[in-house]
């Protein structure tokens, strides 16, 4: 790839107290592509996502956005760059309606007063743009939505802004077959619309269905980042479980020199 990736991470380290969770991570995500981030439970996927989103500060390493080195210290910094994250636990307020959740923290105002009509219009346009037709009313409380609908709201919230990079942490983990298909279709459409998308999933079928590249984390290290078309299911599973597969992954050198 000659074009600059939207997001490029180099040599990211992250520790919680004495425990180092991320070691020397490199990751890139390109506009118009879905990059799948895979790895076993506890491999550090969510931690990496929170570093990207500014929830956790990184200890060392470079964070490049559109080729420029940037510093992201808070969720607001990330949002200002155009980075939107759909967290594993969604982070929606059950007692608010769909529109209020989508605009939370970034409400449109007219003077002192909330501009509800404009927000509802924008929310409706965004959902229409995503071809979402499953919600009855935008003024429905989020507590009354199904799991898939909640996931849809969380994704729509992420694309409502002029986002360039959308990261989704296990968006289909709690969903049924039909709703999973819907959400995956939605993820694919985001990339087709020109966004860079990072998708975290444990489901290999989902990963191969929508992603262009696959990045495998193993025990806090990046085992390999490969094109989805150039690997098989079995190879990816091997990368996830043992950190290497044939030519892929770091050679068995104890000092960690990668291929």
């Amino acid at each position, binding site marked *: 790839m000659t074009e600059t990736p939207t997001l490029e991470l180099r040599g990211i380290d992250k520790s919680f107290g004495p425990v180092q969770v991320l070691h020397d991570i490199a990751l890139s995500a390109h506009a118009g592509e879905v990059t799948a981030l895979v790895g076993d439970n506890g491999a550090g996927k969510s931690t990496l996502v929170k570093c990207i989103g500014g929830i956790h500060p990184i200890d060392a390493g470079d964070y490049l956005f559109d080729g420029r080195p940037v510093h992201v210290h808070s969720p607001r910094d990330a949002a200002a760059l155009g980075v939107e994250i759909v967290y594993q636990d969604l*982070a929606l307020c059950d*007692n608010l309606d769909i529109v209020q959740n989508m605009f*939370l923290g970034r409400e449109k105002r007219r003077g002192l007063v909330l501009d509800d009509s404009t927000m509802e219009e924008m929310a409706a*346009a965004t959902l229409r743009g995503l071809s979402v037709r499953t919600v009855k009313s935008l003024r429905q409380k989020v*507590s009354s939505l199904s799991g898939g609908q909640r996931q849809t709201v969380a994704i729509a919230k992420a694309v409502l802004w002029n*986002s360039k990079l959308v990261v989704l942490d296990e968006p289909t983990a709690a969903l049924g077959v039909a709703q999973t298909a819907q959400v995956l279709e939605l993820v694919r459409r985001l990339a087709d619309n020109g966004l860079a998308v990072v998708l975290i999933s444990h489901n290999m079928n989902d990963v191969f269905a929508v992603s262009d590249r696959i990045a495998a984390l193993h025990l806090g290290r990046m085992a390999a980042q490969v094109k989805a078309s150039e690997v098989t299911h079995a190879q990816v599973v091997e990368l996830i479980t043992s950190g290497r597969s044939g030519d892929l992954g770091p050679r068995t050198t104890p000092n960690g020199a990668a291929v």
Partner: protein
Amino acid sequence: MTSALAPQKPERPNRPTDSEEDRPPTAGLGDIGRRYLDQVRAGELGALPAVAGLVVLCVFFSLLRPVFLSNLNFANLLTQSAGSIAIAMGLVFVLLLGEIDLSAGYASGVCAAVLAILLTNHGWPWYGAVAAAMLTGAVIGLLIGTLVAKVGIPSFVVTLAAFLGFQGVVLILLKEGTNVSVKDPTILAIANDNLSPVLGWVLLAGCAVGYAVLQLRRSRDRLGRGLAGTPVALLAVRTGAVVVLGGAAVYLLNQERSRNVIVSSLKGVPIVVPVIGALLLLGTFTLQRTGFGLHIYAVGGSAEAARRAGISVAFIRTSAFVICSCLAAVGGIIAASRGNSVDPNTGGSNVLLLAVGSAVIGGTSLFGGRGRVVDAVLGGLVVAVIQNGMGLMGYSSGVKYAVTGSVLLVAAGVDAMSRRRSAQR
């Protein structure tokens, strides 16, 4: 701002090709009724139980004790409940966050003591003393809010400590329990004087017209943008209800209610009514129409989601406690006016419990995230009607407290059940 999705046609994604199902449903009255029923089934009872309870209680007491419906008693009911309603309004803000303020009662006592001492012992003008009382409330709220939001002590503990502490502060301020009388005519007028009958009507007319115009403008704006607006029929019904209920109240309050007209005439809307009305408007506007109010609901619904959305949770928490204590100060001023004096019991005994009870009976959840300022008014009236009606029937204070306590328990039970109900989905 939505361009990310449709870079190919940035003008306006999908606008002109709206299919039938995309068009917002122009809801009729039937739809609205059905939607309301859905809400009730989902555990969102809103003001329904409080209003129903109020109607049942009023019918019950007026059948058993016709004097309950007398003009004098009606006016008494309003002035009796005003102080507690003001405190309950403040508690709504704190309850919305899922926190509690046990010190609100004695905070109102401290503020009332400051007011009375400055007025009577130091000869301050009423506005200076009121400002000082309000400032005292704000400082109290800031202190409690900081301890809860920044230091992280549970609000139950902080305000329990403050509950004891303020009880002591009132005693110290009042020199071990002397009674400081309030003689300032402006302060006394708040709970003891009435608007002239004409002014009562003018105020009602102003409210009705203002309400109708605001609602109509909002609905027009929404319909103009192709969003589902409230149908005109419903607006008419709502405005009609305001006019009829308000009109009946103003009419009753404008009747002569003095026992001896020759000595003094007593008629008109008590001044506390527009005072509470103004607080209700201000509080409702803040919670329903401003970003700050929305953030209070958000923090009450999920503090973590609010934090990730970039909302300063500590600021929201602290402000809620400041608002609560300021409204407690208002409650203290009303109590001082109604009692013509301040003593160590002002804001003490059952004041706090009745105020918390009012908010919860009105429909504000103890679990946070659900509630409105109007709940405090409706619940406060329910509590006042129970106390007043049972008093007329000759029951002792003991029975009154027991019954009020049971009603609070029922309201909290309804709250807990509706919460479980919406959690099951």
